[in-house]
């Protein structure tokens, strides 16, 4: 299978990418690692007229110490994040989860920016970024703006990014002493999560869910129950509240709700909540 024809342009800088987006409008799509976009294009589920390749913006492929935060360039590959000594020290839930994405080949090509901008609620990193209160940095014609993770994911494959904006950086807070766990459930090793659950305990506990609705979710009922002093298993019992689980070949909504309760309990236990 070969994608439908398109025009290919390579961005030389972030500003160049933005001006190309302005020039080509709705017809254009950014290409990072291509590991979400190219499979869709091969299946003709996406048919952009112009691909703007941002894959060579090396300035966006690094991980930097940024005071209270760690700044991860949008073009950083999952494998770089998985093995980053800085992230392993300062925000291990992010480096660990990057290591759970797909398989080795996918982690060599796929980028965190693509993962986040694609806005797929079955992706692993968005849920974790939501739970740690990451900040997304976007660059557009009017300059740079910061978007909190809690405002970023707006719908099924939709985000707060406009058509002329590029995601440049994902900032994650340093949480070197937090308890954490990411529980991913799938049937075959390389697959996407049927359901995933993250818990991060840093004083209070944050809980997030992968693939339990059209966007990555915070399990607010669980968080509130823990705040009110509920036991871990009582808190985990309300994990499916407020979710809208999809039903597909991998499982019914009811099965996913069951998984959410089980995985949240395991995540809370492992995070030491």
């Amino acid at each position: 299978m070969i994608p439908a024809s398109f025009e290919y342009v390579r961005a030389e800088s972030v500003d160049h990418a933005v001006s190309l987006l302005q020039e080509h409008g709705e017809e254009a799509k950014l290409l990072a690692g291509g590991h979400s976009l190219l499979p869709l294009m091969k299946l003709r589920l996406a048919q952009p007229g112009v691909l703007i390749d941002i894959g060579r913006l090396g300035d966006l492929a690094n991980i930097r110490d940024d005071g209270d935060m760690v700044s991860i360039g949008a073009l950083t590959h999952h494998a770089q994040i998985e093995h980053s000594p800085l992230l392993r020290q300062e925000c291990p839930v992010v480096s660990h989860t990057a290591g759970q994405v797909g398989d080795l080949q996918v982690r060599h090509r796929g980028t965190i920016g693509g993962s986040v901008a694609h806005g797929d609620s079955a992706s692993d990193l968005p849920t974790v970024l939501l739970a740690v209160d990451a900040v997304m940095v976007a660059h557009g014609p009017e300059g740079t703006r910061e978007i909190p993770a809690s405002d970023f994911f707006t719908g099924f494959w939709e985000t707060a990014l406009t058509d002329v904006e590029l995601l440049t950086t994902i900032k994650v807070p340093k949480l070197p002493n937090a308890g954490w766990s990411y529980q991913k459930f799938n049937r075959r090793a390389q697959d996407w999560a049927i359901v995933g659950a993250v818990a991060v305990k840093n004083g209070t506990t944050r809980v997030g869910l992968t693939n339990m609705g059209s966007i990555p979710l915070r399990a607010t009922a669980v968080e509130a129950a823990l705040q009110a002093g509920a036991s871990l298993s009582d808190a985990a019992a309300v994990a499916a509240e407020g979710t809208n689980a999809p039903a597909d070949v991998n499982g019914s909504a009811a099965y996913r709700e069951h998984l959410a309760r089980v995985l949240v309990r395991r995540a809370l236990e492992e995070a030491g909540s």
Partner: protein
Amino acid sequence: MAIAVVNRRIEVTVNGKAHVDEVEPRTLLIQYLREKLDLTGSHVGCDTSNCGACTVLLDGVSVKSCTVLAVQADECAVTTIEGLADGDTFHPVQQGFVEKHGLQCGYCTPGMIMAAVSLLDENPHPTEQEIREGIEGNLCRCTGYKNIVDAIQWAAENS
């Protein structure tokens, strides 16, 4: 929608040899390797980024070449199964597949070997579990995983 498709000139070093070609932007790397360069060692299994039969090294790391555009490999180095041996001497991973009979029909083998080369490059002494996880992106329809894992372990011990 009318699209002005302009072919793109790419320079790719494949198995140490420089190639300059004009390709349609939608050409997949696997297609370029097999159809343009006649390097048919890398296979197409699923064509949907799942099976790993098309695995090659792009600037030294394993990728699924059915999910990479040839234009994305411009100015990069590609290694395929054809470029792995040193003259008549097999690469240790290839030799491991010989020693441990790491194949049955052989369809998955080129991709398996390239994935294993990249895995051992990152982790020269993996445990059995790490090998199994390291090749999770490669499927063997003959399901001969035991001998494949043994072959990779042999390579780790003999390189």
